């Protein structure tokens, strides 16, 4: 049973690094911000497995919900794509 537990921690740690790299390399900032939220989600599960339920609850409430919303509002007020900043907002579809 302890092997299953620690193996899950190893898998989640690898996934954490992969999602963080995705968030850095992505050109569409909305995707990058959602990937940052996913980093917080995985981190919350890892905190729960490392026996820190208080920290997991804080990360779930603040890291997933509030930080992601703040980033999304900022992208809505500025440009969505990393390369061009011709127009503001969500709806500048890049074709």
């Amino acid at each position, binding site marked *: 049973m302890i092997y299953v537990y620690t193996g899950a921690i190893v898998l989640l740690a690898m996934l954490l690094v992969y999602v963080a790299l995705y968030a850095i390399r992505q050109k569409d900032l909305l995707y990058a911000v959602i990937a940052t939220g996913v980093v917080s989600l995985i981190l919350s599960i890892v905190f729960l497995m490392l026996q820190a339920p*208080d920290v*997991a*609850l*804080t990360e779930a409430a603040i890291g997933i919900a*509030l930080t992601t919303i703040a980033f999304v509002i*900022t992208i*809505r*007020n500025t440009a969505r794509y990393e390369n061009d900043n011709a127009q*503001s907002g969500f709806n500048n579809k890049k074709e």
Partner: protein
Amino acid sequence: MKKFFVIALLAILGFYLTIAFLQIPFGQNRLGQPQDEATVGAYYLNNTKEKSAVSNVVTAIVVNYRGFDTLGEVTVLFLASTGLASILYRRKEEEVERINKPSSSLLQTGSKFLFPLVVLLGIYVFIHGHLTPGGGFQGGAIIATGFLLMLIAYQKYHVSHSMLTWVESLAGVLFVSIGLWGLITGGTFLENSYFPKGVLNSLISGGAIPIIYIAVGFKVAAELTGVLDILLNTKEEKSVPSNQNEK
């Protein structure tokens, strides 16, 4: 070229960080036996049950042993909220349409139904902060999420800023006055020994700790709601004529 230098720097930094942290074995018991109280954590684990009658040791550390830290943290949140408001300042007459398109009526009715449940969950979390995982910060963040749901679902939902100010300052005054009362009666700021303790694992236990955590919860909820409200009410502008090329 710059990228090469940065990657080399990060490789050196990562190498030394890895070497340094492999010296700390993961999962070993570094607390020692709790009886001899070799570390601070062992002292807290040993003495929280008798001295402050709180089940959640993290709550005891955050509110009681390191209560000054929490006071400073709440102050930092207040300063962040104030600074955000002054950075994103706009005049009162230019009213802002928050969202371009109205959301569907299903979403509006549903969020009107869900909002009391979310606030109830937040209040539950910070009232039971000394018994279960959770506390003032988590509960305040959950309440702010509930207000965020209403702000997104309705185009014309206004959070009353005077109410936020009153809640925030009353909670702050409650926190500081409990600390000062401990200073008067016990000799140290946030002294907990002059409140009735109650029984471990019951709702009324822990002396002043639940009261302080409830105050912290209201304060954090008001501050985070204010931050989200200010961020959502910024005016969405099309790209402004930039004056950067005047040199």
